[in-house]
């Protein structure tokens, strides 16, 4: 039956199931399952594997058909974390929708926000009006988010191979980055900081001081990871020659990001089609030519150092570039520069005084912008950025209203996860674990 149908379009009907010899094991003792399989004289086992990767707890289903220790077929079940983000965005204003898109790939929230905001900027026709300082802040934040995302990816890879230390090492470094995000945006994750037209507010000086003070600790985390893994013979043994996907496979399956760069092809949108002023930064595109899990590990490792290089340049530029962080167009920019006041709340005293004491028109304008939002001229755009997982695209369609007509997030991990069957079939079950980690799936982005 399976010869003619590569993918089952529907559950197997009862009459098919009744005739076949199978053991249905829901958890239970592995010995019982093994003895039952032995009784049936059947080497073929179908199992739902996991959870093993931090991303797979209840939200990614891997169905493996095994012949002994070898994987005959891999199927990936998605949708367990589908929260209807794209649909929900249609009921929110363009500005509010940032909050939704932030929750897609929640490990690199602000990279999603950047792609979405670039799409809205393009729809509004204000791409070249974004103030210089806002561009620098966007790059700074996106690169730190990239480091944080890669740290999680590599820590999880190490963790899966039995090295819990690696998880603690990488999460330690990530914590300093999240502390910086907290100092800037008030939240560790799901920040909703990058906004159409610029960013929500300026970076406080204390946050910069804090980042500089923590710099060495972040770098130490990357170096520790390098020291523990790169030359580790056990790690190399598990990763080299595993999950091989060459350039043609990447093109066929639409794979981008570290997986594509591990084939030696230096495709990085920050260089190919620079956005947000990436052309003004010096950095190298990291590639490897091994096409395997080890290559993807090395690409991510080296990319973190390059990202920190960009962050250092961005910090220098930030000091030299005072100025606004939002487009001057008052029909788009949220009024009032919100800062954290002595009470710990966001306040804009001058603006509050302006609208409550001085200007009736100011109050009306404020009310309209907050309740209704800004109008976006009709049309459709597709913005692309180099997300830590690969090419992220946001299709934004406007019908001239204040809410998105349709937003689609092309999440790189959605495509990359699709390659799991190609990576794992024919290999051993232990390789599946390494392959899943090398894809770096974050189901919030995959399922949206």
């Amino acid at each position, binding site marked *: 039956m399976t010869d003619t*149908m*590569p*993918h*089952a*379009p*529907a*559950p197997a009907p009862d009459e098919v199931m009744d005739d076949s010899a199978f053991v249905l094991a829901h958890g239970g003792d592995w010995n019982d399952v093994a003895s039952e399989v032995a009784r049936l004289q059947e080497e073929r086992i179908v199992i739902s594997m996991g959870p093993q990767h931090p991303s797979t707890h209840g939200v990614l289903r891997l169905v493996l058909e095994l012949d002994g220790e070898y994987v005959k077929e891999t199927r990936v079940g*998605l*949708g367990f974390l*589908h929260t*209807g983000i*794209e*649909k*929900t965005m*249609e*009921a929110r204003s363009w500005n509010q929708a940032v909050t939704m898109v932030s929750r897609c790939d929640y490990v690199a929230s602000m990279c999603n926000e950047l792609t979405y905001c670039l799409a809205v900027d*393009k*729809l509004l*026709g204000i791409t070249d009006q974004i103030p210089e300082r806002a561009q620098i802040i966007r790059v700074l934040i996106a690169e730190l988010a990239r480091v944080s995302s890669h740290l999680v990816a590599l820590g999880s890879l190490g963790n899966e191979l039995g090295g819990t230390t690696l998880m603690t090492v990488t999460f330690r470094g990530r914590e300093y980055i999240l502390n910086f995000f907290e100092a800037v945006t008030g939240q560790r994750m799901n920040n909703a900081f990058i906004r159409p037209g610029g960013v929500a507010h300026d970076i406080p000086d204390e946050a910069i001081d804090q980042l500089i003070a923590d710099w060495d600790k972040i770098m130490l985390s990357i170096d520790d990871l390098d020291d523990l893994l790169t030359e580790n013979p056990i790690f190399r043994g598990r990763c080299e020659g595993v999950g091989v996907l060459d350039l043609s496979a990447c*093109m*066929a*399956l*639409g*794979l*981008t990001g570290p997986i594509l760069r591990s084939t030696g*092809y230096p*495709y990085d*949108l920050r260089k*190919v*089609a620079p956005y947000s002023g990436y052309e003004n930064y010096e950095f190298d595109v990291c590639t490897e030519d091994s096409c395997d899990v080890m290559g993807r590990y090395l690409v991510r490792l080296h990319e973190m150092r390059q990202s920190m290089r960009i962050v250092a340049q961005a910090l220098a530029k930030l000091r030299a570039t005072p100025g606004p962080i939002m487009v001057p167009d008052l029909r788009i920019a949220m009024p009032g520069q919100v800062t954290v006041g002595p009470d710990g709340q966001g306040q804009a005293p001058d603006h509050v005084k302006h609208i409550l004491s001085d200007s009736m028109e100011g109050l009306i304008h404020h009310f*309209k912008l907050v*309740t*209704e939002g800004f*109008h976006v*001229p*009709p*049309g*459709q*755009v*597709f913005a*692309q950025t180099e997300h830590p997982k690969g*090419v992220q*695209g946001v*299709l934004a*369609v406007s*019908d*001239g*209203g*204040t*809410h998105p*007509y*349709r937003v*689609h997030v*092309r999440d790189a991990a*959605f*495509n990359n996860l*699709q390659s799991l069957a190609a990576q794992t079939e024919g290999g051993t079950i232990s390789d599946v674990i390494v392959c899943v980690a090398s894809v770096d799936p974050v189901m919030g982005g995959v*399922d*949206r």
Partner: protein
Amino acid sequence: MSDNQVQVTGGGAESAARTGTVIAQRHGAFGASGAGDVTGFGGFAEQVTMPGPSSRPYGGYFDEVVDSLTQALEAKAPTAIEKVVVDRGELTVYVRREDLVAVMMALRDEPALRFELSLGVTGVNYPLDKGRELHALYHLTSLTHGGRNIRVETTCPDADPHIPSTVSVYPANDWHEREAWDMFGIVFDGHPGLARILMPDDWVGHPQRKDYPLGGIGVQFKGATTPPVAERRRYF
């Protein structure tokens, strides 16, 4: 930018044909209805259209791409291209659904085109675009030609929601087509296994269609009910 502004009705269907697809019609102002119209705003009507077909030169590499594509399709599918829209620096080629696979083949294989990388398929539902309610959008990138981008758009009517599958050309579109089927109910003929991917297998309906309500269940607290988003007061 003036081409993209909201069009206030005058010519009706005639102006729509000239400017592009009608995607929304609005009446009145401020969302007020039910009360007597003392302001005259109730008679206010506007029709929103997508950017219409562009004329040459399209600019940049767009002319070259469209020429190469037209040339490649001359023998196989001379009428494949419906219209070419260039808007906000992006090239969109509208293609008849019958010729979609031939167009994709040409885009992938022609040396002058070489769009090797498919960034997936997604749908958009335009209920007002009669006979073309469901649109499928394909975003392609050419690595050979330094990251050129093109969007291929094709449509199908709600009554006959069939579009040929492109998985044979771009295997990357496998899951994307499943998602577009799941969310919009577009049937991709020839797909190796068009099962739902995000919603449960036994789900009824296609959630991202415009007629599918959002948040159908009110949230109750202190005896009050928060209505679904679509039924709340809106400010436009």
